[in-house]
């Protein structure tokens, strides 16, 4: 039996996600962590991207989108991105 403090799915975090996650505010980071926990416990699921990227899904967290993939027993965090409409 799985202890209650362990995830149902292992969470894999690549470099890309780390780089996008690092500059977020503490408040946003906490909201993202909570959403990842829900994903890892199998409580929520996102909408699939298109074409050959249908294996990736997105979940909204305010103005951010968490992009992740699902493999058997694994959640792979692809990236976290804000809606980008600012001037650059």
């Amino acid at each position, binding site marked *: 039996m799985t202890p209650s*403090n*362990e*995830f149902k799915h*292992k*969470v*894999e*975090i*690549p*470099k*890309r996600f*780390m780089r996008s*996650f*690092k500059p977020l505010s503490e408040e946003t980071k906490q909201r993202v*962590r909570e959403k*990842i*926990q829900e994903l*890892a416990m199998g409580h929520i699921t996102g*909408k*699939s*991207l*298109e*074409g*050959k*990227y249908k294996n*990736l899904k*997105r979940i909204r967290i305010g103005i951010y*989108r968490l*992009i992740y993939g699902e493999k058997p027993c694994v959640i*792979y965090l*692809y*990236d976290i*991105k804000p*809606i*980008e*409409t600012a*001037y*650059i």
Partner: protein
Amino acid sequence: MSSQAALAIPPPPPSPIQALYGTLAKTRLYNTFLEYARPYIEHVLNEPKAAGEEAQKLLNDTKFLYLLSMLSQDAALTISEDKLRKAYGCVRGRFKEFGVDIEDPMEIILEHELWRLRRIRKNFDKFTTMLLNFAAESPEDAYRYAVISTALTLLLIASLNAKTREKLESIANKIKELTDELELYTLTFMVALKENEEENKVAITAESPEELRKP
């Protein structure tokens, strides 16, 4: 799914806000485009839920596709971020005037349009190669992308002619539905252009909430 999906290369998707800008600017090209699309726009104004069906009819029309190709050339030469924002502000203001909330969907459309414009200006060859690959690998999804873009174009232009709050609400509801899908295409294309094997390598794993607090 229409017979168009069987084509190796689906029709080119229009840029909704660019079309809106051209419509407001009343250039000769856009007057021709508007004249041609008028029956479709009027139908969408009367029945916003039918925007997808009207878009499919237009995409089966070779003269419309020719016009789309002209619009793309016009966009490459004349459109700018400021022009996109101006058209965006105009339509957003119209919904706001009637107290209809469309902020989130409009942000999704603007994000898509800005991203597309920036990619075209930054590396046109890379952008078009990505889109062509997408169309070749997933023609049904690429066709759906063209339908969504065309339907949004019709809805945004129709919104300029809507006279009541109820009509604008109905248009806004359809726009919301389509932008849910558009957002997934934006993210798909962003991912497709940023594929990098090195960045995909797993750096950390977490099997509990405690381990998740590390990054």
